[in-house]
């Protein structure tokens, strides 16, 4: 008995010791965290990453997880800066002929691939050829491209069959941008996604290892040829890799992410539900990182009654009090904003607030009146959503309530994500879907408006088609702004979908991560970890 007594005391003693030691630790950490100081090279960055991508080849998929990791490995000729303006990355400069049909692009000298060969015009030509076949944006641009040729070692010429002014933004589009890879790899991969051995880019970090379901490891590329200018933000400008290694660790649970950051297992964690913002804010060792993340919408099925009738769609728009929906869904004002435009105010070259008058036109009486005038026969409306997301579940529930107030009959049909995606493809399964669309970078990328597909609820509009055509030949910023206003107006009038609210995404980082600059995804260059 006596011995067990001693043992208990010994265990208690150890607990106290550990407790003290860890308290001393955390005290020291917060002190050093206050001083940003000189950049420190070295160390590993552990990122808690919420989804396991299928591939790192962003040209073959639109998945955000793919792109977020891929940006550190691959680079493009042109890309977007922090204001979403097109800037060169691997390219030095470009010239357009007077008839706007020939693009002559020069490449920076001495840009190294991770296999230490230098980027030549031949590599760029082969990469463009693959982009035209594989990338969702590239296949659109393909219709306008007549020929791609290497003029000399560092010059590429693209000849178009007709004027197409979206070419530059298509090549820079972050969703499926033109990634530059060695010629042999482009040819070997063809239309298939790149395999792990083929992840050879020009980025500040190179691919090291991928243990599926567990971790993706990148290491610093010592021979990286950085641009000499300052950091332009976004994906271009000067990039310096301070970390020896970045580990993207697959972690599904946000609570595990927060606990891991508190105890120093992770330095950065992606996709924290805004509900947990208060928890994050109260923790001095964790900093929140926020960035724009598209918006939530509800899309009616326009092939069948009742929403094939514009009057019923208008009634729906008047029935929904979007401010109430957003407030009760997102709660904290930092995580949503009310804006009816197709693009985010941060996207300066794409944003126009004109033509969005009816976005917040909440009017119950008008809704009732329109509904009475229409052919709506009281058949229950099926609102379909994925119950994987708390956000879209809440939006659907409040919508149901508001719609029933004006005379709609509503039925909620929740599915798990995989089932939801399949059900979406058949109009018989739903009348309204509630879903979120991530930030897009050109009008042709707006998934909820791609004509005659399930993603747009089988939208069919000559007006929208002609605006897209006008966009591709628009020359001046003024002209583009006018088209953007017209696009907003078309959506406002035809109601192919109803926008609910702009969303803001929450990531968290350790206070030790210094000078971190967020964009629409993670950027782990030009940032370092203090001791």
């Amino acid at each position, binding site marked *: 008995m006596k011995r067990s007594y001693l043992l208990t005391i010994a265990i208690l003693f150890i607990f106290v010791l550990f407790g003290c030691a860890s308290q001393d630790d955390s005290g020291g950490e917060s002190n050093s965290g206050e001083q940003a100081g000189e950049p420190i090279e070295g160390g590993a960055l552990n990122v808690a990453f919420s989804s396991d991508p*299928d591939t790192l080849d962003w040209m073959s998929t*639109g998945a955000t997880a793919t792109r977020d990791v891929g940006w550190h490995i691959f680079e493009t000729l042109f890309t977007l800066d922090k204001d979403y303006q097109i800037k060169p990355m691997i390219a030095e400069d470009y010239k357009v002929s007077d008839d706007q049909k020939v693009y002559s692009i020069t490449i920076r000298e001495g840009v190294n691939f991770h296999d230490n060969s230098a980027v030549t015009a031949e590599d760029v030509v082969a990469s463009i050829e693959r982009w035209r076949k594989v990338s969702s944006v590239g296949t659109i641009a393909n219709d306008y491209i007549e020929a791609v040729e290497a003029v000399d070692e560092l010059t590429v010429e693209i000849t178009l069959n007709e004027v197409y002014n979206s070419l530059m933004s298509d090549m820079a589009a972050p969703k499926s941008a033109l990634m530059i890879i060695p010629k042999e790899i482009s040819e070997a991969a063809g239309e298939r996604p790149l395999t792990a051995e083929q992840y050879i880019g020009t980025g500040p970090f190179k691919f090291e290892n991928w*243990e*599926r379901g567990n971790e993706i490891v990148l290491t610093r590329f010592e021979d990286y040829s950085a641009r000499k200018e300052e950091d332009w933000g976004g994906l271009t400008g000067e990039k310096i890799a301070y970390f020896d290694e970045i580990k993207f660790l697959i972690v599904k649970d946000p609570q595990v992410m927060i606990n*891991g950051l508190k105890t120093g*297992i992770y330095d950065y964690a992606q996709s924290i539900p805004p509900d947990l913002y208060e928890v994050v804010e109260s923790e001095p060792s964790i900093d929140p990182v926020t960035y724009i993340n598209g918006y939530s919408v509800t899309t009616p099925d326009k092939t069948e009654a009742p929403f094939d009738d514009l009057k019923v769609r208008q009634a729906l728009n008047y029935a929904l009090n979007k401010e109430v929906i957003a407030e009760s869904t997102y709660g904290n004002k930092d995580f949503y904003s009310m804006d009816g435009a197709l693009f985010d105010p941060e996207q300066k070259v794409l944003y126009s607030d004109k033509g969005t008058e009816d976005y917040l036109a909440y009017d119950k009486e008008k809704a009732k009146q329109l509904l009475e005038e229409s052919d709506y026969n009281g058949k229950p409306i099926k609102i379909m959503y994925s119950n994987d997301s708390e956000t879209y579940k809440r939006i659907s529930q409040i919508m149901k309530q508001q719609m029933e107030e004006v005379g709609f009959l509503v039925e909620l049909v929740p599915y798990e994500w995989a089932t939801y*995606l*399949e059900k979406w493809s058949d109009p018989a399964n739903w009348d309204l879907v509630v879903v979120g669309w991530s930030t897009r970078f050109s009008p042709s990328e707006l998934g909820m408006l791609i004509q005659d597909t399930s993603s747009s609820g089988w939208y069919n509009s000559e007006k929208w088609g002609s605006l897209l055509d006008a966009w591709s030949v628009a020359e001046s910023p003024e002209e583009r702004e006018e088209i953007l206003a017209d696009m907003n107006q078309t959506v406002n009038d035809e109601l192919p979908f109803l926008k609910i609210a702009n969303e803001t995404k929450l990531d968290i980082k350790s206070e030790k991560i210094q000078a971190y600059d967020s964009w629409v995804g993670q950027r782990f260059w030009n940032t370092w970890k203090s001791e």
Partner: protein
Amino acid sequence: MLQYTIRRLFSIIPVMLIVSVIVFLIVHLTPGNPAYLILGEDSSPEAIAQLEKQLGLDKSMAVQFVDWIKNILMGDLGQSIYSSEPVIQVIMERVGPTFSLMITAMSLTLIIAIPTAVFIVWRRNTILDPLFTSASLLGASIPEFWFAMLLVLGLGVAVPIFPVAGYVAIDVGLGDWIYHLILPAFVLASVEIGLIARMLRDGMLESVNQDYTKTARAKGVRESVVLMKHVLSNALIPTTTVIGVMIAGLLGGTVIIETIFTIPGIGQLLIDSIHRRDYPVIQGVVLFIAVVYVFVNLLIDLLYAFLDPRIRYD
């Protein structure tokens, strides 16, 4: 004995066949389609159809089933839709963490349960006995996920002794390996410890006043030897059965525990594959778990003969 083993091995075949039919049906009758998941929400119907064809999902279910069974008989579990790696390889990469977790949990269970049971029987007429009974009941009834979160908050965050998540392979470092496994293994073990210890205690109490123990005591054998040599070894036989069932329970439990502690094992693989509708992997994992289960039970049956000389299978 050898004959019995061979007979039992053959009886595995129909079991596996039934398991594979059921798994195949459940997996394929569940709505959802990997092609939509891979291509995303703004994919065109043509692209979907093309990918379905490429994945062989456009064929009728009967054809797909026959293809699958044919391949299995030749030892080929197919290819993962998501990673294009052979299913066998995908499973083998994930076996390490799960088995590590199970072995650690088993060891913890036995290390704690056996001495506790012996101690309780030794002090059987004190207050310790009812205390133990209620404690073991509590251990068996606490929900694993709740207990796991409590332990993480207590011993991972408030008093950071153990890591809150993660796994380190044994070849990286034995110390690190065990350090990362202690919390999750303890959660898994918590349910089993009470179960096994009570089972042992009951078994031991039954034989503690039997004639042969009385004889042993009359011979002048010390109480500790009586308990360890005569009482415990007899009580171990029924307990062995429970341990067999426990292994199955642990396999199920790892699904939850691996998710909470972010351990890249079979359990997580199964859940991820279900979300991704990675049919070949789901089928492969379930078959694998069934095989493990059947073999463990066979092993336990054979172990009886070793533990109890009265049992002979010939």
